[in-house]
């Protein structure tokens, strides 16, 4: 698989995630240790959870106890359900090991790259996503480790790296906008997100806004 053109394209395309992912992971490493997790547990959490949103929420609610953390993690995880269904449709029948591996790193970034790859005609989505997952996971772990062990003197916010993360998703959305329905869905997502930030808890904002906007798209006939 590692010699296939799709895998090599996944590596090349995955490099675009390096700076935002490493910066995000670095910030997580710093803040998790600051919140009271040991450096070893901080690194372990990135190894087993592999979700920036869930991990930041976990350390933010650490003092509140396990129930709020697990409720918030469930809310954040809801958006994985349609992602999982979409990915299953894109990859078709695959061995169990392959499906488990792809699910382990089913994160917004590599899912986005995989959907974009499917739109642009990449032949082997499994190889492509595996390569992008490898890049993401490597830099997620490296960033967390550096942040947890040496992060006290680093502040990603001051250099403005945080803005690259949402820009990455704007770039992932761009090739999906073709029809009038797509523009309406994108506009609905912006409005729904702004409303969600005012009325929903942080853990439910993205999932809620994306669901409402997708339902607007479902109701729109061309």
């Amino acid at each position, binding site marked *: 698989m590692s010699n296939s053109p799709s895998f090599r394209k996944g590596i090349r395309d995955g490099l675009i995630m390096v700076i935002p992912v490493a910066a995000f992971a670095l910030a997580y490493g710093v803040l998790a240790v600051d919140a009271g997790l040991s450096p070893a547990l901080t690194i372990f959490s990135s190894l087993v959870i592999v979700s920036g949103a869930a991990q930041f929420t976990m350390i933010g609610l650490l003092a509140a106890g396990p129930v709020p953390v697990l409720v918030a993690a469930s809310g954040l995880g809801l958006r994985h359900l349609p992602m999982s269904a979409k990915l299953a449709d894109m990859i078709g029948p695959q061995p169990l090991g392959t499906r488990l591996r792809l699910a382990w790193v089913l994160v917004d970034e590599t899912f986005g790259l995989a959907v974009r790859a499917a739109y642009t005609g990449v032949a082997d989505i499994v190889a492509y996503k595996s390569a992008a997952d490898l890049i993401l996971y490597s830099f997620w772990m490296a960033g967390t480790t550096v942040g947890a062990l040496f992060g006290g003197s680093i502040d990603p916010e001051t250099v403005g790296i945080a*803005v690259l993360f949402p820009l990455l998703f704007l770039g992932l959305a761009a090739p999906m906008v073709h029809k009038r329905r797509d523009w309406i869905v994108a506009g609905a997502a912006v409005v729904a997100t702004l409303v969600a*930030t005012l009325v929903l808890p942080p853990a439910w*904002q993205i999932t809620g806004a994306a669901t409402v906007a997708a339902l607007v798209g479902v109701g729109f006939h061309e």
Partner: protein
Amino acid sequence: MSDLHLILAVGAVTFATRIAFLLRPRPIPGGLVGRFLDVFPLALFVAIAAQGLLAPRGTPEVTPALAAAVGGIVGGILFRRNLWGVLAVGAVSFYVARALFT
């Protein structure tokens, strides 16, 4: 519950949502569900971008990230399939706005 157990529990909850439809893959039905899944990725990506650029501190506000949003949209129109182009135009817009207005 110890921190280790909490991490394992969050990992289990997260993985359960990820594997849900991959464990027993079935073709996506047509109709409403199919149409929903067809547009959900676009809605999700725009929602993530909108939250980060228009409400970077949790509520809507005007910050240099708004310039990144405008630049990113222009970059998306100019470089539709070139992710680096979108990032570059958005990032340059952000840094220029930050230098001018903060």
